[in-house]
């Protein structure tokens, strides 16, 4: 099931960064990021175990550099 953040979730996440926001701000933050989270969720849940971010550089450079 796709995770949809609540205002409470957003407020808690923000607190961990050392910032406290009012409830209406937390609600706006949750609403703002929900479309991206729900769209990306199917991908996020299916990523292979042995996959690391530097794969991007490997795909980008060896075959294409210097063309």
């Amino acid at each position: 099931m796709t995770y949809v953040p609540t205002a409470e979730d957003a407020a808690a996440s923000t607190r961990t960064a050392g910032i406290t926001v009012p409830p209406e701000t937390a609600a706006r933050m949750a609403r703002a990021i929900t479309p991206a989270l729900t769209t990306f969720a199917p991908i996020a849940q299916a990523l292979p175990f042995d996959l690391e971010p530097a794969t991007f550089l490997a795909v980008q450079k060896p075959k294409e550099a210097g063309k």
Partner: protein
Amino acid sequence: MSAITDLTLTGIADAIAGKRISSREATEACLARIGAWQPHLNAFIAIEPETALAGADAADAALASGQNFGPLHGVPLAHKDMFYDAGHISTCGSKIRRDFAPDTTSTALARIKTAGTVRLGTLHMVEFAYGPTGHNAHFGDCHNPWNVAHVPGGSSSGSGAAVAARLTFAALGSDTGGSVRMPAHFCGTTGLKTTVGRVSRAGAMPLSHSLDTIGFLTRTAEDAALLLALTAGADDADPTTLGGPVPDYMAATRGTLAGLTIGIPSAFYVEDIDGETAQALDATIATLTRVGAKVITITLPDQMQLSAASQTLLAVEAAAIHLPWLKDRPDDYSSLVRARLENGLAYSGVTYEQALRWRGPALQAHLAAVAGVDAILAPVCPTPAPTLADTDVGGAPDAEAAIQVITRFTRPVNYLGLPSLVVPTGRTASGLPIGMQFIGRPFAEDVLLRIGADFQRNTDFHLAAPELPA
């Protein structure tokens, strides 16, 4: 005066080198035009006539004594106000950095300065480059030279407006989510967003380390090729830059479209676009076909997922960079930029890492989908430039959603780290420019410049200049 400012970057450089026009004449022509247009556009954050004329005189004196500093000897230029120039204020479009004078110079800017340019001042930008329209609560909004009621696009707003209005012969910009391509499209200029790793970002204000790229706003593809040739390549100060030889970009502009295959996406980029943008796309396809390119339809992977991943990286990385100021100086941000930065604090670390991890497979899938084409043709935005009033969302609750609509066709390219070249391809009935983007493979800027240059040899949209408002 207008004859001088109508020259391209390569044209004015050639004229100065050949002593047909002096650097002072070129600089005075730009300053005169800036003086006339600035009240209408607000394209400059700082105008520095004394510095510019002193630099021009020094360039002329050097040339008279047989000394040529480089390919841009004596050419007056201004750039987006986020490229550090040691000892000069670089506001980054912000209140927080209104008095920030860096002690280093950006590598991209340094390489252009080494080619002999004269500094005109600094160009308007969206606060911390975090917005696609050209609004700025601290320095005032920038306006579109084709209709000052409309946005110029952002975040390289001044770069787009100033190049289109012939106030500078070219300008540096940056593109994290469309910030070079949007102003190029809205203002009717050429705009090149480079591949991640092609041009050093050292000394350029960061917004998102994964997505930030350097770019150029110019009159022509040939001008963009010249700036790329000057700036591309390895830089010890930016370990993400690619080593090895750099293609001959100027030679690439002498190639033709004949023999190239251009892919038109079957979905997403052709959906929900307005009628005049659709007409411009059709006309562009017709031109490409007429001059010898093969145009085919291609099916791309889900672009909305790429866009969502791009938004995740941008939001989190921007929030992380700005966290100290969000804590200590929150009221010194505009409401919109502060709200967008705060949004980034709400993502989980796990989601961010997943967005980073998917980048390789996503690029692999993209490259497989475009294996049969040399570049993709797509609109930059579903519409021409909207009005400043319609896009002044401030800190409104749905501001993020409004911004995502404007940048929906640009964000996937940033996630994949691809190069993209925007060229003017048409005009609306009301006179607003319409540009299209050619999206290439990683590090294949040479192919894009070949396409853009030949397209511009066969069209004249890039030659049109706006008229000074009454």
